[in-house]
């Protein structure tokens, strides 16, 4: 079992193709509020776990950093996240970049979705736009998206 074997299983899965690529010109990075959105199914322990094929999202507060991996897929290594949350969710790194002035600020709340979805229509039509609205309401400018 090698990482390449697992990747090969999913390499040719059909993804959603968009006829046009939307594009937002960002504000200068040193003025931008940055959020993380991950498909790693992270959540706080007290929040609802992800169910199979869960198309919703969970809000990840910047504190406390007690994130739990709720992903249903067995097809990734979880020990990197067990050792260091930043392997998946680089919140400490963003804090450091904000302290240096490289980025403007770090959002207080971030989002987690469940990857490994075969039917993306609900995310495309519902939870995706809702997540964007949530982030816009906290004046987020830039989102870094991380998978597992």
């Amino acid at each position, binding site marked *: *079992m*090698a*990482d*390449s074997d*697992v*990747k090969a*299983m*999913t*390499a040719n899965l059909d*993804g*959603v193709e*968009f006829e046009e*690529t*939307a*594009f*937002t*010109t*960002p*504000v200068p990075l040193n003025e931008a509020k940055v959020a993380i959105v991950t*498909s790693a199914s992270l959540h706080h322990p007290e929040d609802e*776990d992800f169910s199979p094929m869960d198309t919703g999202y969970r809000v990840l507060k910047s504190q406390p950093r007690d994130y*739990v*991996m*709720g992903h*249903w897929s*067995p*097809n990734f*290594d979880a*020990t*990197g*996240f*067990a*050792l*260091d949350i*930043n*392997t*998946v969710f*680089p919140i400490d*790194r963003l804090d*450091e970049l904000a302290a240096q002035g*490289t*980025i403007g600020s770090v959002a207080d709340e971030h989002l987690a*979705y469940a990857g490994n979805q075969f039917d*993306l229509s609900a*995310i*495309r039509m519902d939870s*995706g*736009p809702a*997540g*964007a609205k949530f*982030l*816009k309401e906290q004046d*987020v*400018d*830039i*989102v*870094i*998206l*991380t998978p*597992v």
Partner: protein
Amino acid sequence: MSTLAHIFEAEGLATIALGSIKSQIETTAPPRGLWCDFPLGRPLGVPSDSEFQHRVLSKAFELLDSPEPIFAEYDVSIVDDGTEVLACPMPPRHDPDLHPAIDEANGIRPAYERAIAKYGNRVGAGRTVQADEITTAIDAFIRVVDGTPWKEAGIPGIPARVSQDIRGYYETAALALSDHAPSAWAGTRWFLDHTEAGRVVMAARQAMADAGEAQPIWFYMAPGDR
């Protein structure tokens, strides 16, 4: 990730999507995509290496300078060749009257607790099966191996989620049993191929497949290439 990138960008958010599988991120073409040839589960590359993680983020943020959609490849690869197995000194058998997997799971409980105390319970037991119930879960899978239909074996949840908790229990314990941070998949290979509980999970999965159970019930009890 790429789908969300398209949606968010249309709503006025600038995005950078990291991707671990090149063909996927190329096909789905997020507005700004950075393919990082890192093992699945480690999109920032190296745990506990802030400098490495910062270099990845720096490259990601560079993509914001492009006036149009852009795809880039990170210039460092981390390749798992499938051979490294975590070296974990296991406690000796304690109770010879117990099934070896049950005795083993009991034996590594102190290591599990040490790892939880140090790192928190990020991937360990608790999604369906609490740490106190891990041996109950293993016992149920032993019954499946011995021929009991899975629905009658007392598996305390959906088999895939239960096996995930057992794997998480072991991989978390391994963080305290080993003297070094595991490379990607080394802990999984150790669990599946070198522990009694891993052998039970794989044997139960095979027994369910051989019994003609629906594939989704047993397939996700282990990585799909197994």
